């Protein structure tokens, strides 16, 4: 069966980082030989979240902030599906903050690609949870008054077993990260910087190029303390690459009948199987 993914014309602005992210995604999926009918892309709402419409995999384009719960439901229901969640920084760290925190606790085998452009694109330029404090936006005319969320430090604190940062401007590097995240057995958090050419005049392509650096080849990503230090680095350079990666038991494996049985969707359904339960009520 062909692993080639069809692509469809997006409604993104010319120069949007989403184009590159989609290119990397397509390449990653094809290099991993994952057939389109076995991949599901789950998203919320935002420009990033339109991606299920622009690549030919199974897709669940749900509600703003609510991509993670259905992704978990889908993965638990069919462990053979490759489930990827893609949404923006507002969707993931704002509206969906509660699900972000608790999904990490579960450690379901899904890859979570957050298109982090540090602004709200679809709704035209309001501050997002990751917009820098003091930055002026189309809503915060005096500048954002809040400290930004620290996404990778947050996921590390919550105990995520795979935490990484990428950049839409480096497709080969991003492809590598995506493949690692998809093949990682557990919840993989990949925060992807991307410029929003229309609404974010601060975090531009140039800004990202100048403010990020690559973790060296000898960086030990099994060292939690190191990873945490790296996660907090910002003003003096933001590290890109895998910050942390260790094995952990997945949520779905904690269900014996899922771990050692067929996918839940393939269970035989027979009402008579439940008849025995009535004995408690005699």
């Amino acid at each position, binding site marked *: *069966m062909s692993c080639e993914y069809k692509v469809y014309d997006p409604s993104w602005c010319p120069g949007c980082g989403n184009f590159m992210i989609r290119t990397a995604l397509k390449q990653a999926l094809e290099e991993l030989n994952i057939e*389109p009918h076995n991949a599901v892309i789950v998203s919320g709402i935002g420009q990033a979240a339109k991606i299920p419409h622009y690549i030919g995999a199974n897709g669940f384009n749900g*509600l703003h902030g609510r991509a993670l719960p259905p992704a978990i439901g889908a993965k638990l229901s069919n462990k053979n599906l490759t489930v990827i969640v893609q949404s923006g920084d507002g969707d993931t760290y704002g509206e969906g903050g509660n699900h972000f925190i608790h999904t990490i606790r579960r450690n379901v085998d899904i890859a979570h690609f957050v298109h982090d452009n540090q602004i709200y694109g679809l709704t035209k330029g309001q501050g997002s949870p990751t917009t820098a404090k003091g930055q002026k936006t189309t809503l915060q005319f005096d500048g954002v008054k809040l400290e930004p969320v620290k996404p990778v430090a947050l996921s590390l604190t919550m105990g995520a077993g795979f935490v990484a940062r990428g950049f839409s401007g480096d497709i080969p590097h991003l492809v590598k990260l995506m493949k690692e995240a998809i093949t990682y057995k557990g919840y993989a958090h990949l925060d992807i910087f991307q410029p929003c050419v229309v609404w974010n005049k601060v975090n531009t392509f140039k800004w990202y190029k100048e403010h990020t650096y690559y973790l060296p080849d000898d960086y030990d990503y099994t060292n939690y303390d190191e990873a945490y230090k790296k996660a907090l680095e910002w003003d003096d350079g933001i590290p890109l690459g895998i910050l942390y990666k260790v094995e952990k038991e997945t949520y779905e494996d904690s269900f014996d009948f899922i771990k050692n049985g067929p996918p839940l969707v393939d269970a035989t359904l027979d009402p008579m199987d439940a008849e025995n339960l009535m004995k408690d009520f005699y």
Partner: protein
Amino acid sequence: MDYTILVGGAAGQGIDTVVHLLERTIKRHGYYIFTYKNFMSMVRGGHNFMQVRFSDKPLTSYSSKLDMIFALNEETIMLHRDRLKPEGIVILDNEIAKAEEFNHLPLTQIAKELNNQKVYPTVGFGALVNYFGLSLDIAEEVIDHVLGTKISDINKQALHKGYNMLERKYNLEKKEDKHILINGNQALALGAIAAGCKYYCGYPMTPSSSVMTYMSTKANEMGIVVDQIEDEVGALNMALGASYAGVRAMTGSSGGGFALMTEALSLAGITEIPIVVFNAQRPGPATGLATRTEQADLRFMIHAGHGEFPRMVIALRSPDDAFYQTARAFNLAEKYQIPVLLMTEEYLTDYSMTIEPFDFGRITIDRYLATEDDVADERYKRYKFTESGISPRLIPGKVPGKVVLVDSHEHNEYGNIEENAENRTKMMDKRMKKLEALMKEDIQEPWFIGVDNPENLIVCWGATYGAVKETVDRLNNEGHSFGALIYGDIWPFPTKTINKLGRIANNIIDIEQNATGQLESLINEKTSTKCSHRILKYDGRPFNADEIVERIICQIEL
């Protein structure tokens, strides 16, 4: 024989234990049981009481009058004395109140002798076993069943110690016991399990939680994922993901938690992902009365979720109904690819009643899934325009070469975002068209009970069924002409029977547990019938037949 025992005390005193032992022991002697449970919203203290009613004839409701009060504290006597029949008796531990007309039993004293304070309710149970002439063997079996083997020995000792404390008054004949004794939530959960539900996610909220608890106890045995999720918003979204991937999923809550699910309900509507959601109603608004009962979410359930999309709403009327309707809901959700919303209410979630064992052979699992042959298009159209409005539904990952795209935006047949005006109209029409087939093929008229062509027609819905049934039987036995329609399927609203009977009846009496007459408003909106009287109750307590009869006689010239 029709006897009611009230067991009352502070939360944590052991009322539950005594009641479970009593109801099941009497039930195993072949009697019909109806146990009404009344709680305050606290884990310790306050006042809780339960009423075990038993009879040699079928019961559907609780009685307002008491034959016996078994008081675990003095407050119980004060609160319920005026409902005790003249010949009724009060039983209590001799360390509580000292009034002479009570039957004082040395319950705590015996418990102390057994070195286990906790068994004193069982000592009382022992006294009642002899009082009613029940079998000690059966009482011991029930102790094993209800309390489990770890603590059954000490409880059996307590049973025997208490046995001689009261003189025998009755000799309840042991008859054949063919029934099960079950409450509304257990029945709902069993119905879901029978229907092949393999995914339940939810957030604890009274009085819905015991559905999740029951499913959790059976999860490993039946291969069901039971997930306590971080919030109700996530719960319905998660269940939709599971259903999208092909697994029958359910979630549920009570008013405030259901309120958090409304956006996802809207998502279910436009994505056409089948789903079953239940609301165990309690008095609102907001936190309201957490442990009490009401029927005030009808309009909410019918209209919840922004925008317009087809849904079905079913009100559960008894534990029996809860089992079969829940199983049916899963089939209808998948047939029409709509949300099917079940309404229960605290009263029904908690009361236990003897019913015929469920006939699992009556349950069918009908999935209405498309096969590869149904989807000839090169690119699968999840939302293909069809005559009925129902598009062939594929499960992701099941057909190589075909992908399934579902979408919360308005979309085209493929599921892609589409803003085109003509497409929007066509898609909205497609979705709403599904209601036509639902009305024609599957919506059931309300239950009817009573005399044919009644002069007085009661209309009600959900768990008011039990009290209304007793009311109708009583009034007809006294020579009046009463009938009642009890709505189960309540949206889309079935109109045939009410219009037919409404033309004949002199009085049409709306009986429901809310302040604004929500069923009546539906009748006004959808039918040519008008109610002439209404009996509303919204004090957080359930109707009983005595109250309804009294209020009917007050309002209507019979």
